[in-house]
Every structure is written in structure tokens, then in C-alpha cells.
């Protein structure tokens, strides 16, 4: 596999933005969807732009992830593609979420150029907001040295480092000084390079070594972190302790890129009961937590979306009570995805496990019947 090279003499962000700007000027893209610093300077939001006057405020790799890119993309293309060809540079987890949303028919990728970026991880949103300037400085350093101090937990264990589902991947790691790789993954990406008159002729060997190194490091982190977590959450006792502070705001559900339902089952009429029902439930245990169904919400959401969970960490960033939501979801999602040999967001071609089946599978789920069973 080979890639093209583009210049980035003034830094990574500048290199990426110049490339995007060129695509815009040459009419290859009609618009860009980019994270831009908000006027107050304390956060970032996605901005769809045709004009380039906000480009100096744009940052393809911001230090935080206030909105999941796939969620923004879904907002843009949920009702189908417009006539515009939009270039969307996103982090690996955002690309993966976009892939899942495409399968769930919540994103239309027809007129979208998915552009993958290497990601050193991001800072926890709440930490960043305490001192955005410090966060910015920390991240500038991280982009140079490719190591981020105290990133989010999910970022430290994120091992699908370079997503193949993006049409074009902008390789930062392993690129020669002052350069960036452009790696086409799909026919769309190859065509894009051709139109820009770029040839994929550079060797990616140096990059592959670095990627492998990073992936191995993160996989190791992951194994260790998940092993520890598995012990921490097992059993009703510890699980309830973790979720005890949940205040039922359902922020986690609303910022989750995969939870796309307009009306969540857990906010619906289905769980609203008569006073007698609540009293009866209270009498059975001596007391009933109000709001009820807190654990049901968490477990229910896990069972609904864990097969598509991309571990982007948005849920934890948005939790006002600092519940380690994304950690538990990551753990549960991994186990569930292993059952089906599935990895959320890996490929557009892989169908969602819940929409297909095989006639012979999952025998371990069934409890075999012994003809000779006699009650004890």
C-alpha cells in the first residue's frame, strides 16, 4: 500500500486545512464540515462552511470532542444527501460512528468524503473547560510529540488507530517532517487524489511501523484497563454503587452518536405507571427509588446499543455526575461484539449483527433439553 504526500510546513493543522481549502477552491468539495473555535474561545463546534473566513479559527484536531462528528454528520444528512459534496475530516471514533450510523440509515455518505485523521486522543471536556488556554497549549504539544498527557480513559485504550472505512486517510504518524500522507482507502478516495493530481507513490513503511507500535501500546493498555474494570463492576452490589449517583438526566443517551431514536423507549409512556404500581414495588422492598428504573435504563441502553458502541467517550464527557459510563459501555460492548465477531465501525460492508442471522450458531445460548429430566 502506498500513499501520496502533501506539504505541511507550518504544522499539522495548517497542512490539513490547506489541503481542504485547495479541494474547496478547485471545486472538488462544495463545503467543509470542520470543528471551529466558538467566539468565546472556550470550546469548539462543528461548522459547515463554503466561505473560508472562519478557517483561521478552525481546528481539524481540537483538544476536546464537544460534539461527536458523526452526530453532526447525521444531523446534516439524515434526510438524504443534498447536492453539496461535503468533506468531513474526523477522528477514528467519529469515522466508526459514522459507519454505524450509515448502516442504521441515519447518515447518508453518498455525497460525503470521509477523511480520517490520526488522533492522539482528546482531553476530558470538563478538564478542558476549567482552563481552555492551558488545554490548547497542552494539545499543541501533543500534536508535535504525539503523546497526550492525561487524555480520556477511552482514548488511552483506543486501538483501532487508523480506520479503513474513511475514503481518504490523512496520515500524520510516520510522515516525513513537514509532510503529511494521503492514503486512499476507497475508489472515491482514489478518484479524489487523481483529481488533485496527486500520485500515491510514497512508501508507508515508516508509518506502518509507528501505527503498529501505537496500536500495540494501546491494546496493552486496553487489556490491563479492562481486566481491572471487570473486577470493579461485577455483581449487583458494585454496579449499583457505580450508578447510584445517576440523576436520570439521560444526557449520555442524547449525546451518544449511536442512540439515534428521536423518542427513547426509556423516556416514553411505556415506563409510566399508576401510583399503585409504584407503591406495590416500594412495598416489596420497603422502598423504591424515585425516579424509578435507573438501572433498567442503563442496562437497557447497553443491550440496545452495545453492538454499535464505538467507545467515543461522549457519554462520560456529558455526564454531570462523573459516572464512568463510557468505561462500562466499552467493557460490555467489547464482550457483546466478540460474540458476533463484529467490530463496530470497522467496515461499511459488515452488516449489523442484529439484522442478520445464521441457522447454525450460538448454541451456547440455548439450554439443551435432556429427555431424562426428572424433577428433584
Amino acid at each position: 500500500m502506498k500513499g501520496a504526500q502533501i506539504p505541511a510546513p507550518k504544522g499539522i493543522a495548517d497542512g490539513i486545512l490547506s489541503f481542504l481549502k485547495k479541494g474547496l477552491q478547485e471545486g472538488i468539495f462544495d463545503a467543509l464540515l470542520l470543528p471551529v473555535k466558538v467566539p468565546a474561545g472556550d470550546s469548539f463546534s462543528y461548522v459547515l462552511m463554503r466561505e473560508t473566513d472562519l478557517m483561521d479559527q478552525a481546528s481539524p484536531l481540537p483538544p476536546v470532542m464537544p460534539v461527536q462528528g458523526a452526530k453532526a454528520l447525521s444531523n446534516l444528512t439524515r434526510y438524504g444527501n443534498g447536492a453539496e459534496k461535503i468533506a468531513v475530516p474526523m477522528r477514528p471514533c467519529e469515522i466508526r460512528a459514522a459507519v454505524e450510523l450509515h448502516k442504521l440509515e441515519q447518515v447518508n455518505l453518498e455525497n460525503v468524503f470521509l477523511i480520517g485523521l490520526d488522533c492522539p486522543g482528546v482531553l476530558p471536556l470538563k478538564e478542558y473547560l476549567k482552563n481552555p488556554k492551558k488545554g490548547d497549549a497542552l494539545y499543541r504539544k501533543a500534536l508535535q510529540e504525539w503523546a497526550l498527557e492525561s487524555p480520556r480513559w477511552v482514548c488511552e485504550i483506543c486501538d483501532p488507530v487508523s480506520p479503513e472505512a474513511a475514503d481518504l486517510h490523512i496520515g500524520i504518524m510516520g510522515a516525513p517532517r513537514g509532510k503529511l500522507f494521503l492514503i486512499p482507502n476507497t475508489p472515491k478516495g482514489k478518484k479524489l487524489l487523481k483529481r488533485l493530481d496527486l500520485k500515491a507513490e510514497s512508501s508507508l513503511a515508516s508509518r506502518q511501523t509507528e501505527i503498529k507500535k501505537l496500536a500495540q501500546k494501546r491494546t496493552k493498555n486496553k487489556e490491563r484497563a479492562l481486566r481491572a474494570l471487570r473486577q470493579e463492576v461485577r455483581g449487583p452490589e458494585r454496579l449499583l454503587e457505580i450508578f447510584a449517583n445517576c440523576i436520570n438526566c439521560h444526557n449520555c443517551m442524547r449525546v451518544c452518536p449511536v442512540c439515534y431514536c428521536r423518542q427513547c423507549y426509556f423516556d416514553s409512556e411505556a415506563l409510566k405507571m399508576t401510583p399503585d404500581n409504584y407503591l406495590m414495588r416500594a412495598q416489596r422492598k420497603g422502598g423504591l427509588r424515585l425516579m424509578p428504573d435507573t438501572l433498567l435504563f442503563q442496562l437497557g441502553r447497553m443491550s440496545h446499543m452495545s453492538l454499535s458502541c464505538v467507545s467515543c467517550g461522549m457519554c462520560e464527557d456529558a455526564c454531570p455526575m462523573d459516572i464512568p459510563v463510557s468505561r462500562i459501555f466499552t467493557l460490555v460492548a467489547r464482550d457483546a461484539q466478540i460474540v458476533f465477531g463484529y467490530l463496530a465501525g470497522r467496515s461499511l460492508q459488515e452488516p449489523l449483527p442484529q439484522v442478520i442471522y445464521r441457522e447454525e450458531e450460538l448454541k451456547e445460548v440455548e439450554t439443551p433439553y435432556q429427555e431424562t429430566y426428572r424433577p428433584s
Partner: protein
Amino acid sequence: MKSFQPKIVYFLCTWCGTGGCETAASYRMSYPENVLISRVNCTGSLSAVHILRPLIEGADGVVISGCHPGDCHFETGNYRARRRIAVVKSLLETLGLGPERVWFRYVAHGEGRRFVDTAAEFNDHIKKLGPNPLKMRRNT
């Protein structure tokens, strides 16, 4: 201590599971009375929430029976149910909430004996496991 009488929810699909139950009835076979039957149109119509909710709100175990593979009235419902139950069981396993409290076993219309046996066997199985620790927690 009083002997433990578990509360068991048994989901049966309309076409096969319920049929098995009827067959058992017509042969005057009996099953434990603490097994509460709940009929659903197809096991494929069960959501994870239908399994999780009883476990949180008072059941000691949940057992699900539908048509044998290939026999589903809606062609593929039981295959889909199997995948969904696999997710729930994986979730319960990961979080240490007792995946063994959920059983999935096919029962055909004519299999009255198999239905009665499953109810009794699951009942014994849950008795051995003891009460579901989740159901008495106030803080759910």
C-alpha cells in the same frame, strides 16, 4: 428459613411455546405454579428490556421458549431472538448479574412434555441458585 419459592417468568411464543403449554394441559400434565406464563406473538418480538425488567423488578429467573429453528411462524423470528438473547446474556455475564438466570429453549406445539419439563427443570435450577440478588435492591 422458609423454603424459597422462586418467581419465574416464562415467555412463550403464540405459535409453538403456547401450543406446547396447551398440549401439556390437554394431557393433564402440571408444572410449578410459581412459573408465570406470558404469551408473546413471537420470541423475535421480545426486546432485551422485557428480559431485564422482570429481573430488576422481582423475578428470580426468565425462561423463553419459541419454535424450533426453521419452524418460526414468521420464518426468522427465533433466529433473531437467539441473537438478542445472546446480547443480554453477554451483558449479564460481563456485569456479573447472573446470565444463568435466563434460559432459552425451543418447545414445539406438540411437545407438552418438553414444556412441563422445562418449567420444572428451570424452577429447580433457580431454587438451587437462590433468590435473585438484584430484585431486592432498593436503589435500582
